[in-house]
């Protein structure tokens, strides 16, 4: 039986050396990110390690077994699958880098949409609205421009209403404005002044009730038809940075610099969940009972899962990931969280049971000139 054993142990396998070369920098980056700042390696050591690894890869390639691998790769190349092919089928991801905004399909194809600093999906993923200076631009995921709207001053923080996307809210400086989903300028109107630089949140199943943060630190919900204020909170201790309604419209979640505030449908603060660090970003789970929050503290950046329902609010945050992260998006069914791991140049799919699936080298997929692409939205994926 030694023959079987030997062949199982020693038969060269495709891709082993190349995979080692690709994986080592990722593993090394993971170690560097968890180190205290004072323990970081010196550059000469880093260079020595890289050199040694390249030497290892070369040695493997030039050895008899490696030559076999080289021959095989020369005659039958095995190109790496597109990084984005690991995305679940059924939805598309919106990414923004310095070179623009991109729609990414799960088959790995990418489409540049425009030079947008901010962007968001329409409810069914049929359109993307992007911001370029004073302009709002609506495009299809294939890059066809459907309409543009120019304002006298800089615009930001667009948000399409839910369900059919009949309306679109945005800010022009500190003015909250609304326009019809087809961009008809006749429908464009100012709703309120004194809006903070926070993306407004539409009440689910409505294109007339809108919640926004004020520059005074309060949260206000307005009925666009009657132009009345439905409710207003008192000043939140730390000003809201992001707002999100649960899908059933029963609770609004506001992220502040140090906490997550849960508000009911009448504007009453139900609970405040403190955070162990400075909050950067929040993604509310589709069922509204938990959220993923990116925080920094103690020289580390972490993604935490917070329970927001009454039963779990006291449970404390659970660490989902530690690393230099930017961009969080839940899948439609809430089974996966997509995050951008800048430190490793990867996106990661965090799944049930703490499973992690990496999407390698995403910067290269979208053109390295744009730098690391930030996850800006994930529409309609299963």
């Amino acid at each position, binding site marked *: *039986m030694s*023959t*079987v*054993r030997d*062949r*199982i*142990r020693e*038969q060269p*396998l*495709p*891709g*082993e050396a190349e*995979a*080692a070369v*690709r*994986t*080592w920098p*990722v*593993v*090394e980056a*993971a*170690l*560097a990110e*968890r*180190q*205290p700042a004072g*323990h*970081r*390696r010196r550059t000469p*050591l*880093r260079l020595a*390690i890289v050199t*040694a*690894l390249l030497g*290892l890869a070369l040695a493997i390639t030039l050895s008899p077994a490696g030559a076999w691998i080289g021959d095989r790769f020369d005659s*039958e190349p*095995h190109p*790496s*699958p597109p990084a984005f*092919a*690991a995305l679940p*089928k059924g939805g598309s991801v919106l990414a923004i880098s310095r070179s623009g905004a991109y729609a990414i399909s799960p*088959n790995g194809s990418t489409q540049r949409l425009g030079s947008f600093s901010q962007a968001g999906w329409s409810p069914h993923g049929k359109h993307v609205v992007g911001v370029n200076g004073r302009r709002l631009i609506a495009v299809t995921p294939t890059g066809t421009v459907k309409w543009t709207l120019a304002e006298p001053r800089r615009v930001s923080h667009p948000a399409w209403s839910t369900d059919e996307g009949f309306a679109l809210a945005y800010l022009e400086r500190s003015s909250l404005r609304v326009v019809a989903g087809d961009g008809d300028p006749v429908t464009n109107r100012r709703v309120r002044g004194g809006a903070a630089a926070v993306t407004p949140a539409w009440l689910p199943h409505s294109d007339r009730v809108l919640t926004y943060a004020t520059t005074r630190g309060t949260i206000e919900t307005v009925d666009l038809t009657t132009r009345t204020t439905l409710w207003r909170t008192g000043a939140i201790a730390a000003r809201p940075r992001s707002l999100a309604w649960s899908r059933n419209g029963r609770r609004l979640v506001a992220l502040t610099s140090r906490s997550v505030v849960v508000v009911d449908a009448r504007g009453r603060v139900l609970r405040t969940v403190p955070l162990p660090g400075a909050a950067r970003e929040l993604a509310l789970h589709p069922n509204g009972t938990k959220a993923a929050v990116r925080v920094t503290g103690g020289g580390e950046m972490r993604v935490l899962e917070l329970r927001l329902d009454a039963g779990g609010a006291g449970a404390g945050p659970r660490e989902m*990931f*530690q690393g230099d992260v930017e961009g969080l998006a839940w899948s439609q069914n809430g089974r996966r969280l997509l995050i951008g791991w800048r430190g490793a140049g990867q996106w990661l799919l965090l799944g049930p049971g703490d*499973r*992690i*699936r*990496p999407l390698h080298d995403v910067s290269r997929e979208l053109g390295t000139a744009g730098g690391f692409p930030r996850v800006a939205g994930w529409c309609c994926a299963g």
Partner: protein
Amino acid sequence: MRDVQRGSAAALEELFRREWPRAYRAAYLVVHDAAAAEDIAQEAFLAAVRAIDRFDRRRPFGPWMHRIVVNRAIDVTRARSLRREVDAAAAETAEAPSDPPTKPLSDDVIEAMAELGPEHRAVVVLRFVFDYTPGEIASALDMPRGTVNSRLRRALDRLSEVIER
């Protein structure tokens, strides 16, 4: 391990060089797909680095890592089998065919491994790649020792048949 916990990249590199070939091999022999094997082995290393501060140095690192790799590879193989069944049932409405699996190696033993079920492959990998005893395999895969022995026997019979052809 102590040096890795202190943040030594050189120590981590030594650990990586020692463990990567076997981690990749174990994953590949169970999933028979290079891309998936790379993902699985990388996930295992990332999990190890993230948990390194909590790792008990009195326990050996290798078995902990091997267990992650093999169990994850079994999960991936099962999920793929299930997906193939679903895809077959929904073939008429499928948007696009799935990517073809990596072409298998020409080595007959490696090819014969692909004919075994994922649990049988895992038993063979743990026995012959990692040199686990049947008792240790039973513990790693959470199955009775008798089941390990019978699976190992059947797998070896099948692989021997292939070699003797």
